[in-house]
């Protein structure tokens, strides 16, 4: 034991001696300041400050390269001690440039923006799932001003950054520095191709709109009298504002946050107001288009999906050609929606606007008959979009469907679209409860039928038609027969004389959540009538696929729709895309517009040699937002929703003049004040007057 201790001790002594001698012989003058600083530092050599050990940190502090509070291991006492050595004072200072994950929001943001219930909207967003960034609620710190190398940004009179476009080079420094992701770089291509992503701050209406229109921005533009801007904002995402302003079932209004405490904002009629303003002003407000690249793309079907796809492709610089089997463009907008809801003149004006962007149209060209996929490819079309819609009516599958006087619902509307009147008798029965059934009923009434009855197998509550359509039909004296299903069509000498129906009652809910109607045995009743019109559903007519060898392989679902990716429109044949009713089954114009845009994006990416699939973070619909179940202190409260002026019923009979007249400028402006200009969780409160409620949003430039 003693020996070992001596051995190690000797080794230690030898080392110490060596060091001692070396220290004497090789002594170096050290700056006393460095030594003093080093003495004040903890000496842990942890390296957390970024310097290699306390000695080098002391050197850096003494030479002024590092601040006195650089030590992360020692805490504030060490900082004070070092500062004393250096003869400086430790005070709290705002950072020059705000940090990326800035946490000022709870202290400063409420001055500019009021969060609803929760202190920080990002915390709330995390509870709702997924990362969120707020693009409203600038803190006014001016980080963007400081990092801009070109001096292009200044803080304006409202305390918000203002960009001088002539100096901006698009370097993106401001975008990186902004602690709240409010400043965004954007470009035309980005705006056309970008989808609403789950990290964007989206108002509920905007998140719901299938076309992803920036609703709060255009409502604000109308409110400030900037009608041109409003049209531009709408056309960024919707090529058919005149149409949608008239026929859209406005799912956005169902999600409107004001609707939680009173009636929702009349979003759709504000859109119509802006669109009508453009049409009545006589000058077209066209969106920005990229320079033409002369690459040819074919669009089969001139309905809303095809027109939307052509519109976005034209804006991206392509040369789209629309092939339409009917004599006019518009698809179901022309041949499905009656004149009194959407005048053909208005539709023509809107379609002309799309054609003016450089879209070519070829009418009376049926696929499989006048051209095929192969012939399109040979003509040099690099990508093909199939938007053929749902044009075949579903049959009633009851006895007597071949009797004279039984009509498929779409046929009559198509005839009307071609300005032909279908002769109808005095008593007409419409089967079905959707918008097509309402259109048929109201058209028959206008064509002179005295007694129009709608037969629907469930109750009014379950009707899929828009509430306003049902209400207008009632105003026009249409009879409704709920809980009744046709069982037989009866006739004499091949001519229809009546319809036998059975009464139903509601049973257990089915897969769609609606209660399933169950027939009541023995309740069959005969209803005398001259015409029966079946409007119980439509499906795509894909007969052309069989006549087209190249399209034979196109995958089709069991519902006879094209089997395409709903998010990107891609089919199993590369370069062939599809969207709208052709893929989803009969749906709304605004959904077809959204599908057309998604397909245009996929086609652009396909033609650029990129992956055509859709990004997985785009917002498909409203997200459940917990905590916002009511809107207390919404400003201004108690103002009624603008009511659309209408033609009175006496003037409607026998005429197809448009029923809805459009909001007046005064009404529209008043209605914009009801908009809460929501963010993800926040909305305009009572104590914030509208006039003071102005901020720059990223994408309305």
């Amino acid at each position, binding site marked *: 034991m003693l*020996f*070992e201790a001596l*051995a*190690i001790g000797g*080794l*230690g002594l030898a*080392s*110490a001696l*060596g*060091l001692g001698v*070396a*220290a004497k*012989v*090789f*002594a*170096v003058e050290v700056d006393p300041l460095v030594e003093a600083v080093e003495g004040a530092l903890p000496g842990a*050599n*942890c*390296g*957390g400050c*970024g*310097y*290699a*050990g306390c*000695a*080098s940190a002391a*050197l850096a502090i003494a030479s002024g390269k590092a601040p006195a509070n650089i030590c992360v291991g020692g805490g504030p006492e060490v900082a004070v001690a070092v500062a004393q050595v250096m003869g400086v004072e430790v005070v709290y200072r705002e950072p020059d440039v705000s940090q*990326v*994950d800035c*946490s000022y929001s709870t202290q400063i943001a409420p001055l500019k923006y009021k969060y609803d219930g929760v202190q920080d909207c990002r915390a709330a967003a995390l509870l709702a799932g997924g990362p969120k960034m707020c693009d409203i609620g600038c803190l006014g710190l001016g980080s963007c001003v400081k990092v801009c190398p070109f001096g292009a940004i200044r803080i304006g009179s409202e305390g918000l950054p203002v960009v001088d476009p002539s100096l901006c080079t698009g370097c993106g420094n401001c975008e*990186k520095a902004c602690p709240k992701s409010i400043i965004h770089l954007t470009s035309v291509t980005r705006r056309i191709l970008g989808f609403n992503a789950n990290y964007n701050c989206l108002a509920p209406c905007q998140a719901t709109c299938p076309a992803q229109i920036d609703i709060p921005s255009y409502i604000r533009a109308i409110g400030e009298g900037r009608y041109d801007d409003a049209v531009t904002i709408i056309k960024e995402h919707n090529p058919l504002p005149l149409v949608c302003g008239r026929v859209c079932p406005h799912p956005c209004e169902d999600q409107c946050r004001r609707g939680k405490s009173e009636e929702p904002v009349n979003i759709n009629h504000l859109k119509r107001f802006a669109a009508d303003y453009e049409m009545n002003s006589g000058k077209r407000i066209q969106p920005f288009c990229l320079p033409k690249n002369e690459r040819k793309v074919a669009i089969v079907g001139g309905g809303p999906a095809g027109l939307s796809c052509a519109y976005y492709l034209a804006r991206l610089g392509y040369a789209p050609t629309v092939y339409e089997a009917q004599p006019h463009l518009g698809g179901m907008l022309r041949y499905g929606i009656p004149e009194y809801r959407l005048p053909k003149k208005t539709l023509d004006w809107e379609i002309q606007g799309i054609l003016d962007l450089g879209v070519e149209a070829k009418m009376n060209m049926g696929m499989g008959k006048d051209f095929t996929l192969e012939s399109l490819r040979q003509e040099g079309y690099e990508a093909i979009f199939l938007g053929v819609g749902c044009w075949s009516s579903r049959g009633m599958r009851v006895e007597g469907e071949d009797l004279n006087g039984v009509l498929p619902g779409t046929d009559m509307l198509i005839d009307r679209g071609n300005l032909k009147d279908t002769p109808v008798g005095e008593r007409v029965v419409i089967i079905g409860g959707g918008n097509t059934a309402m259109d048929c009923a109201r058209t028959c009434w206008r064509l002179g039928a005295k007694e129009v009855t709608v037969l629907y197998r469930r109750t009014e509550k379950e009707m899929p038609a828009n509430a306003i359509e049902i209400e207008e039909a009632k105003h026009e004296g249409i009879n409704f027969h709920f809980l009744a299903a046709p069982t037989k069509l009866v006739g004499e000498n091949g001519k229809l004389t009546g319809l036998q129906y059975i009464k139903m009652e509601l049973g257990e809910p089915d897969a769609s959540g609606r209660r399933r109607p169950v027939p009541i045995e023995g309740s069959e009743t005969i209803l005398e009538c001259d015409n029966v019109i079946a409007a119980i559903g439509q499906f795509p007519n894909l007969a052309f696929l069989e006549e087209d060898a190249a399209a034979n392989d196109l995958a089709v679902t069991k519902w006879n729709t094209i089997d395409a990716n709903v998010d990107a429109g891609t089919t199993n044949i590369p370069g062939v895309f599809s969207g709208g009713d052709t893929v989803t089954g009969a749906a709304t114009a605004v959904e077809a517009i959204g599908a057309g845009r998604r397909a245009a994006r996929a086609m652009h990416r396909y033609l650029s040699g990129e992956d055509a699939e859709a990004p997985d973070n785009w917002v498909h619909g409203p997200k459940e937002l917990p905590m916002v179940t009511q809107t207390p202190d919404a400003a201004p409260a108690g103002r009624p929703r603008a009511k659309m002026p209408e033609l009175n019923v006496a003037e409607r009979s026998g005429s197809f003049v448009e029923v809805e007249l459009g909001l007046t400028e005064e009404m529209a402006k008043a209605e914009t004040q009801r908009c809460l200009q929501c963010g993800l969780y926040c909305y305009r409160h009572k104590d914030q007057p509208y006039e003071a409620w102005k901020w720059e949003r990223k994408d309305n430039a």
Partner: protein
Amino acid sequence: MSFGDYMLFIVSAILVNNILLAKFLGNCPFLGVSKRMDTATGMSMAVIFVMVMAGMITWLVQYYILVPLNIEYLQTIAFILVIAALVQLVEIVMAKSLPALYRALGIFLPLITTNCAVLGVAIININEEFDFVDTLVFSLASALGYSLALILFAGIRERFMLIKMPKAFQGTSIGLVVAGFLALAFSGFAGLVGGH
């Protein structure tokens, strides 16, 4: 050993048995001085220098002091003592006689005094029963492996400055996560060289 054997030996020490990412020695400076590329490079140079020096001295201490005196079980304490004294000595001498080199390396030297990678290499040298030349080569190769890992890591961490990082991940947290990934990546070299 032939030249080919030495090559295998070196590749094995740098990649397969990387002292940092496979043996997990010397993690403290690995996290501490990897924030900037220039400090990481300086640290690497100092490690190469000290590891080779320490490898030689400890080999001599082992075979000329501990073994003759029959006190091999005091290896750890003796090595620590010798390495610490050596590093200090080198620092003092360098500060006076080679001020330029001292400014480049010297400030990193005190950090290495307590670096377990240096001690680890010294002990491995003995455990593997290397002769003096093997010790020299192995110490140098291990130090090169250490430098490679440290510089790679610093390069990655410098890029973190440019991105938006959630607060919870900032600093050492993401450093640890990335260190784990690097170790995983290096584990892909396992089996590259048979034997070791």
